[in-house]
């Protein structure tokens, strides 16, 4: 044990002799790891959030397609769907988008049936009458309005309408409700000029989870112009969006990995004359090849472990404490209303282990192999260069 510690001590003093070069390597290495880890932490947190919450998403959403595009669906479809075995309730949903030309932002407008008025994540109450609405925190900020204030919107007839804000969705729900404006169904029909008997889509409740696909097939057979979307498909969408293989993440990931490979390759091929001479001297004074390899192993380990732990720490603070500041401009795109990330730290240890394996292991190998080549050469010829 003492022997290993002494070799480690020698490795550290060897690193200290070239401290500026090694500090530069640690800085680049830690930056690469923190970039990779930030992306992993962020996407994992969003993916788990979606997976945990969307369990309560509608079991089946039925859209109607016309000319290959989403179109309004007759509510009479709902009557036929309700008659299918295993189907519970069928609710028509009326919703749409609204472009606010003053703020240059898009809102999602949604109609709810009068009934439930209170929600844990809602301050105030849901709209019960025409002329009332509940808004998300992003909309409230954009409109500089709160509960009791009026919200001015232009309807489908190009008429300005004022709605009293009766509810405000709490900040905790921003990832879900940031751009929402909720009206009563009656009011949203009037606002978008959607005639009675038509809806944006239908929400179908199915008693047995295992029958969802069967019911979806039956609906498709019954109404060939319909497009049933199951809850599993919704969950799968978010699984795919925040997957390792998704476009943006893969690009950043690949760039960071390429940068790391260049660093490791430089290390593997660029063992300096000074280092070669040092190995030659060590061999000449009686060190075994195994001792030299252990020395180089400890040097590589000291640099990679320090960089890995620093990189991971920086990534955690960046994503979960600073709201992924550096990644938001990339993710935000053209969204004017973009919720600030207050993410729950769902961290997957498996991903940390994979990251460690992908970075620490190759770096140590890249440090040891060229030294091994030098260490098995005759010390005299190594020292002579």
């Amino acid at each position, binding site marked *: 044990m003492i022997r290993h*510690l*002494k070799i*480690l*001590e020698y490795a550290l003093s060897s690193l*200290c002799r070239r401290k500026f070069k090694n500090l530069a390597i640690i800085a680049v290495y830690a930056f690469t790891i923190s970039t990779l880890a930030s992306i992993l932490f962020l996407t994992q947190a*969003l993916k788990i959030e*979606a997976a945990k*919450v*969307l369990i*309560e998403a*509608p079991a089946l*959403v039925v*859209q109607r397609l016309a000319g*290959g595009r*989403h179109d309004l669906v007759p509510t009479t479809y709902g009557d036929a769907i309700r008659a299918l075995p295993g189907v519970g309730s069928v609710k028509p*949903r009326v919703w749409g*988008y609204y472009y606010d030309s003053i703020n240059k932002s*898009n*809102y*999602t407008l*949604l109609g709810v049936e009068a009934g*439930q008025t209170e929600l*844990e*994540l*809602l301050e105030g109450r*849901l709209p019960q009458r025409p002329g009332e609405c509940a808004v998300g925190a*992003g909309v409230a900020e954009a409109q500089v309005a709160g509960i009791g204030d009026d919200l001015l919107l232009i309807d489908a007839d190009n008429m300005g309408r004022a709605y009293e804000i009766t509810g405000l*969705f709490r900040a905790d*729900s921003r*990832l*879900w*409700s940031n*751009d*929402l404006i909720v009206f009563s169904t009656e009011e949203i029909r009037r606002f978008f000029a959607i005639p009675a008997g038509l809806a944006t889509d239908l*929400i179908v409740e199915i008693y047995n989870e295992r029958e969802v696909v069967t019911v979806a097939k039956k609906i498709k057979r019954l109404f060939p112009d319909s497009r049933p*979307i199951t809850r599993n498909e*919704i969950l799968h*969408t*978010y699984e*795919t969006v*925040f997957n390792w293989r*998704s*476009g*943006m*993440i*893969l690009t950043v990931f690949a760039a960071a990995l390429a940068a790391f490979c260049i660093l490791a390759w430089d290390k593997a091929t660029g063992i300096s004359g000074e280092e070669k001479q040092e190995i030659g001297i060590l061999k000449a004074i009686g060190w075994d090849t195994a001792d030299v390899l252990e020395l180089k192993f400890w040097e590589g380990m000291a640099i990679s*472990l*320090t960089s890995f*732990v*620093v990189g991971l*720490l920086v990534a*955690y*603070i960046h994503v979960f404490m600073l709201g992924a500041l550096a990644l938001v401009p990339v993710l935000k795109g*053209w*969204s004017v209303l*973009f*919720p600030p990330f207050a993410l*729950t*730290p769902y*961290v997957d240890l498996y991903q940390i282990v994979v990251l460690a394996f992908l970075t620490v292991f190759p770096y140590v190998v890249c440090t040891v192999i060229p030294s091994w080549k030098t260490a098995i050469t005759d010390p005299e010829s190594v020292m002579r260069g």
Partner: protein
Amino acid sequence: MIRVRIFIGFLVLLMSAQFVLLVGGHQESLQVDRAGVAAKRELVKTLGLTDLALWTEARYSRHPSQADLFTSFQDYPGSFDHFPAGSIIAPNPTGLSTTLRVRKSAGRGRK
């Protein structure tokens, strides 16, 4: 062996900080699971929500799960997917995944 002590001490300090953050984060996520997730589920169930309110710039990025099947061409056929959000979403593998061949039977072909 002063350097070994300093190095191990430094590494232990960093790892402890990381450990504390991870354990604290795990506790927080459990707490959120107990209280926060139930409230969010209630919200999603009551309003019938299907998507995260992340990218509001276009309808196919606001509701990726409800968008048309060929979302890259929402605005006009052949248009580029001009919002950065589109690049987050992985495209389908290129090429045909399934090929269906239909042939006339020999008997019918002669007729």
